[in-house]
């Protein structure tokens, strides 16, 4: 395969030396190809079904090699590619081996029959004397000749129809089929050589991303395709490398030269959408499903159900609820499309190459024959994921830019938009009769799924976004037990959320009801649950299977729950369930039989359920590749255990909210149960599908085991700790309310404008509001300053971190323009580059000094105290002069920064005169004789040039730094909390001089965390300062703690970590969802990692408000290594913390913050104003 393209059928059809087996040779070149034997004696076999990660490629090759008596290695399988494989529909319902492999096997038999006949003719030996072994034909008399397949096909093109009479090899002669061949694909996959669809690269390929509408995960309704209001192309004008922005209806995509540019463009593109419509609550789907219009379809009605129900001695009516779940492919869908004048080629991980080709033809108004689907492997999907959607996305974008385009969906898009496994509601009405038998079984099931039309078809308006109804709720709807009075009704209904088949389709939920209910009957009748089932189970293979399993699992009959007891906080239990998975349109076809014994431990303190062991027996008929079957059974057990214990899609009223693995957790390695698999040998029976069967009994087996452990029946999933705990406690305890935090942000103290004006105007009368302008000068020449002066100025600028605030929005030094949101309005940093027009190039030193010390601009207007002149006022003349010199030698930037325009009354700058009279103390720095020179140097840097107090001191109503004990006791700046630098610091470990030094020098202190947000840039800006200055600042800052020094930092840190370990359980009880998000999204780096310190030491978790934590979660944190590089230090951690702004919603972040606080700062009160903090943080511009 070159260029990731399979050889097309036409090449086989026109090849001179070739034996082809086709469906019907009379169709000529239009015939469908099954087997090709070439000159090299290799066999290429074609199947319309694809490998979804189950290893079917290997099993099909085994079938072909077996039937043709060729070495396994001589067979190549081509799966699904439309240019050559037969159209066998979508790869669904475990039917590849059971159904689509049948013509392939017959084709192989046809080929064998023909090759032997040709050999007989060629060498003149009767057919019955010929032997075919290992792909070589010989006579059994030991003659000295042999023929390979190549020898026979040489020189002729032979095309034969599949001969349905060609003799199949008897199963008793099988050597390859039934043996565990190693998977052919794994060596390449384990070494990075395999080409998944994600790895397809074609010459000239561009990268695309789509921007999806806000009705995430809902695909029907009038709004679909009509919600786009506008796209602001200017929002991405600054990004170079964008090739195109494409919009058709609600389909929006971007194409760029590089992937990261496409990502940036999709993120930055401003798209305005209509508000999405509201849907009923799908988090508790029962009500919504009952209200969904439906059509009842009766599948069975025997005996007299109504009469039997009326006569039940113990009526038992039950409802079982299945949640929406995700297929959850680990690799979000991806595709490459190449649209050109010759047609369209797509490389796709589709499950349905042929149906998808039809959709693409419709979408692009082109004949199907001009479309070629190269089917590539993708991440396992276990049903429909977004593979078809993304293929159509790529096709639209490729058509728009006339070049090959690769589109990769994001994790968030795949989570939100994949067609979900549908929720389902099962009602059972029944009960016990006088003898304790089942009086009746009246079963109703509601399943709102559909075929999930390929998304771009409806987004572009090509097909109307109407919800169709398919009859898919009936899988395994008939219970396996011989209930005398039986009625089964399926309520066919349209989808609510976008949904499609998911492993076990409706059979898994239906069996959840069947197998829990029979357990409930057994319990009510006081009979062992297995014995009770066997009374009504008459299928001999099922009975054999159940008996084999109970023997293997050493099942001990019992008539009541609780017989396994428990220890400590644990209750033990064991549950049984059985199912034969009946798939396909009703009445359907049976796949493999499967039965489970599940062992569980239920923790009564935490509500956690551990599935400790699963013993599973399966009757698969003939197993083509027993190891392959075993792996499928393992996979089904683990995946379904995950679904039962953990998985449920969360919705808002308009969209899917589970957009990453913390909000939609999967089972992890430590939770994987021990598994014992019993494969019933049935090699003489026809093969059965094994892709789904072992999942089907899972939910009921586990729920039955939990009942056995606790006596509590759970009839809804997933069995989360909070659900279990609530049932164990009879009711859910509310998490204890924490006392409100005392400290408030300086702006949250409802500043009354009127009051402020009154206060200020009173002062205005006392101080002259007007200052004279100072005349302009020619910008001084750089050579008037000595190198030493400029250097001193550079260090002063570093100490003052001037460029952190005055940097241009595009990174240009000192260009100004950064916006600061203050309670009084937005303040913009000015251009302080030496440009005469836009900057300070025309300022004399006196004008500069006045601005620095007195907060008055050259032209006489007052500056707002966002400019920390109150600190600079104390700076040395020499430093300010050197700073002036340094600034004058910088590159001028001729660009005006936006003017600060506060709202009335703050717009009256003259009022600042009064403010200054109150708060500006223009005193030079005082050397403290009782302290050493280092301390004094540190004090000078911290208190004047460094202006640490500007951020780290709380401000009063008028925005002035508070004095006294508030000084350096923490403040707010730029949407971040600037923590206390003195004894009021909230972290569990006291600050020492060494810790301050580490933090200021490297941006990281082991016991406190990393500098992020504005502080990271301050650390970066201070990089030019000599170590001695950093040491001096550290020494001074540490002295603020004098008298309250930490006893022993390492003991404090150990204690904090120990406390957080201890708080694990209580924190999970306070915020179970937060715990899951932490485990799924955060814990990979924030636990057990030797490089990052524990969050228990991070100041932000101990702060009074969660602002900094929220900043980090929303916006991410740069890799410490980046900061370390700028400070010239080593920091091994190269990973950055990703931003979760687009991924987690507000309530998820709140749950997470609650958990983090409870877990890592267990001695601190819970945060009560997280929502307000979120508003502040999201409004902040930093």
């Amino acid at each position, binding site marked *: 395969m070159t260029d990731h393209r399979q050889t097309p059928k036409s090449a086989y059809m026109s090849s001179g030396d070739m034996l082809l087996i086709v469906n019907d040779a009379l169709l000529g070149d239009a015939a469908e190809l099954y087997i090709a034997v070439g000159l090299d004696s290799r066999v290429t076999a074609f199947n319309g079904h694809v490998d979804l990660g189950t290893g079917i490629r290997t099993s099909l090759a085994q079938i072909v090699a077996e039937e043709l008596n060729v070495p396994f290695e001589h067979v190549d399988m081509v799966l699904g590619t439309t240019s050559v494989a037969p159209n066998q529909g979508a790869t669904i319902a475990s039917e590849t081996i059971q159904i689509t492999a049948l013509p392939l096997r017959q084709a192989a038999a046809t080929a064998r029959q023909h090759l032997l006949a040709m050999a007989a003719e060629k060498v003149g030996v009767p057919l019955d004397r010929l032997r075919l072994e290992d792909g070589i034909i010989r006579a059994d008399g030991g003659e000295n000749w042999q023929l390979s397949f190549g020898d026979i096909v040489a020189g002729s093109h032979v095309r034969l129809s599949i001969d349905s009479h060609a003799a199949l090899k008897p199963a008793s002669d099988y050597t390859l089929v039934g043996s565990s061949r190693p998977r052919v694909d794994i060596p390449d996959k384990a070494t990075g050589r395999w080409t998944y669809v994600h790895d397809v690269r074609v010459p000239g390929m561009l990268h695309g991303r789509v921007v999806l509408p806000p009705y995430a995960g809902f695909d029907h309704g009038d709004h679909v395709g009509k919600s786009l209001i506008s796209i602001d192309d200017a929002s991405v004008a600054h990004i170079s490398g964008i090739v195109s922005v494409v919009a058709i209806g609600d389909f929006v995509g971007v194409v760029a030269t590089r992937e990261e540019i496409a990502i940036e463009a999709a993120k930055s593109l401003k798209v305005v959408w209509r508000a999405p419509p509201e849907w009923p609550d799908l988090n508790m789907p029962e009500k919504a499903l009952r209200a969904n219009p439906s059509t009842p379809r009766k599948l069975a009605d025997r005996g007299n159900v109504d009469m039997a129900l009326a006569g039940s001695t113990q009526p038992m009516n039950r409802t079982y609820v299945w949640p929406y779940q995700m297929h959850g492919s680990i690799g979000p869908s991806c595709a490459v499309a190449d649209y050109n004048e010759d047609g369209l080629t797509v490389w796709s991980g589709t499950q349905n190459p042929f149906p998808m080709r039809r959709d693409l033809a419709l979408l692009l108004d082109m004949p199907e024959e001009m479309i070629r689907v190269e089917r590539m492997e993708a991440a396992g999907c276990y049903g429909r994921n977004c593979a078809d959607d993304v293929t159509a996305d790529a096709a639209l974008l490729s058509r728009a830019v006339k070049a090959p385009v690769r589109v990769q969906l994001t994790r968030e898009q795949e989570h939100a938009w994949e067609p979900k496994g549908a929720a389902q509601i099962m009602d059972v009405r029944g009960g016990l009769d006088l003898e304790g038998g089942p009086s009746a079984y009246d079963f109703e099931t509601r399943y709102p799924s559909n075929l999930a039309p390929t998304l771009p078809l409806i987004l572009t308006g090509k097909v109307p976004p109407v919800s169709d109804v398919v009859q898919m709720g009936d899988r395994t709807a008939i219970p396996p037990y011989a209930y005398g009075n039986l009625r089964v009704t399926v309520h066919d209904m349209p989808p609510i959320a976008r949904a499609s088949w998911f492993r076990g389709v409706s059979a898994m939920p239906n069996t959840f009801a069947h197998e829990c209910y029979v357990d409930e009957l057994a319990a009510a009748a006081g009979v062992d649950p297995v014995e009770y089932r066997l009374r009504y189970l008459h299928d001999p293979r099922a009975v054999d299977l159940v008996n084999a399993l109970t023997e293997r699992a050493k099942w001990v009959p019992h008539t009541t729950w609780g017989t396994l007891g428990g220890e400590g906080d644990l209750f033990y239990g064991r549950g049984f369930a059985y199912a034969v998975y009946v798939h396909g349109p009703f009445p359907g076809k049976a796949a493999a039989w499967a039965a489970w014994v599940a062992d569980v431990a239920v923790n009564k303190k935490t509500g956690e359920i551990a599935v400790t062991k699963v013993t599973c027996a399966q009757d698969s008929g003939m197993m083509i590749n027993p190891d392959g079957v075993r792996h499928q059974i393992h996979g089904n057990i683990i995946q379904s255990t995950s679904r039962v214990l953990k998985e449920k899609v969360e919705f808002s009223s308009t969209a899917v909210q589970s957009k990453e693995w913390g909000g939609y957790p999967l089972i992890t390695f430590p939770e994987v149960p021990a598994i014992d698999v019993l494969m019933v040998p049935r090699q003489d029976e026809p093969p059965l599908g094994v892709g789904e069967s072992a999942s089907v009994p899972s939910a009921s087996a586990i729920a039955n085991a939990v009942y056995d452990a606790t006596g509590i029946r759970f009839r809804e999933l997933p069995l989360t700790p909070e659900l279990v705990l609530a049932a164990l406690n009879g009711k859910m305890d509310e998490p204890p309310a924490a006392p409100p935090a005392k400290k408030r942000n300086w702006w949250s103290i409802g500043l009354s404008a009127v009051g402020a004006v009154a206060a200020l105007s009173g002062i205005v009368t006392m101080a002259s509001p007007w200052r004279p302008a100072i005349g302009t000068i020619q910008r001084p020449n750089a050579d008037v300053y000595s190198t030493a002066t400029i250097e001193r100025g550079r260090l002063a600028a570093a100490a003052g971190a001037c460029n952190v605030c005055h940097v241009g929005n595009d990174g240009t030094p000192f260009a100004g323009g950064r916006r600061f949101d203050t309670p009084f309005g937005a303040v913009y940093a000015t251009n302080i580059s030496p440009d005469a027009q836009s900057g300070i190039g025309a300022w004399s030193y006196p004008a500069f000094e006045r601005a620095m010390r007195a907060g008055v601009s050259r032209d006489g207007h007052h500056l707002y105290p966002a400019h920390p002149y109150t600190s600079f006022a104390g700076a040395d003349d020499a430093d300010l002069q050197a700073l002036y010199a340094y600034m004058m030698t910088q590159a001028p930037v001729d660009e005006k920064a936006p003017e600060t325009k506060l709202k009335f009354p703050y717009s009256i700058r003259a009022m600042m005169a009064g403010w200054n009279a109150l708060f500006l103390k223009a005193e030079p720095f005082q050397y403290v004789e009782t302290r050493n020179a280092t301390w004094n140097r540190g004090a000078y840097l911290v208190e004047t040039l460094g202006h640490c107090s500007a951020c780290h001191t709380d401000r009063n109503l008028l925005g002035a730094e508070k004095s006294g004990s508030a000084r350096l006791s923490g403040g707010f700046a730029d949407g971040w909390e600037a923590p206390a630098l003195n004894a009021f610091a909230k972290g569990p470990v006291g600050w020492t001089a060494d810790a301050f030094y580490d933090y200021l020098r490297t941006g990281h202190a082991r016991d406190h965390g990393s500098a992020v947000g504005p502080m990271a840039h301050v650390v970066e800006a201070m990089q030019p300062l000599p170590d001695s200055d950093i040491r001096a600042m550290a020494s001074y800052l540490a002295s603020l703690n004098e008298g309250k020094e930490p006893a022993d930092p390492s003991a404090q840190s150990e204690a904090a970590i120990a406390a957080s370990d201890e708080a694990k359980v209580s924190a999970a009880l306070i915020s179970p969802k937060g715990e899951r998000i932490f485990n799924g999204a955060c814990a990979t780096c924030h636990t057990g990692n030797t490089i990052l310190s524990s969050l228990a030491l991070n100041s932000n978790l101990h702060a009074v408000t969660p602002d900094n934590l929220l900043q980090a979660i929303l916006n991410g944190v740069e890799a410490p290594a980046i900061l370390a590089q700028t400070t010239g230090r080593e920091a091994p951690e190269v*990973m950055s913390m990703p931003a979760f702004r687009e991924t987690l919603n507000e309530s998820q972040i709140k749950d997470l913050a609650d958990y983090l606080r409870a877990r890592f700062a267990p001695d601190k009160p819970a945060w009560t104003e997280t929502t307000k903090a979120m508003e502040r943080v999201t409004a902040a511009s930093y």
Partner: protein
Amino acid sequence: MTLPVCFSLNVNDAVESVEASPETPLLYILRNDLSLNGPKYGCGLGECGACAILVDGRAVRSCTVPLGAIGTRRITTLEGLGTPEYLHPVQEAFIDEAAAQCGYCLNGMIIATAALLNRNANPDEDAIREALRHHLCRCGTHMEILAAARRAVAYAKAERTYRSTPDGVSPKAAKEVSP
């Protein structure tokens, strides 16, 4: 996104030059500029582990590593761990246990196991499960992956023995050692 800058990277024992914005996640550089298919995009959030690579022998998630943070550190991808002809013991163990269904997560599983062996030559079952805790597999291949990790411990031990004694057993022969 800031302007592209030239970087020189040490990848799989070769020096590679790339030009891209320093914020670009390393994953895209490895995949798109260096055509390496081992690391896979799974979530972009450091959650699933599909994009894992070794940096100075430690497993990191390349989707969260900015190009600008990597400096001169040594990067090893699945391709650099071993080749089909000269397999790394962990790769060999995963192949021998057929520890993949779709195989999309396989890169992360192998890299995490290799990193585990780098820091702990004798991990027990708990240590193995803990090392793989934050690597997600949807196919439920966990049993085979755990078996492969156990087998990898034995292979790696055998290889060390082979290397340390000139006439010791070959890694191939050592495969007979039961893990």
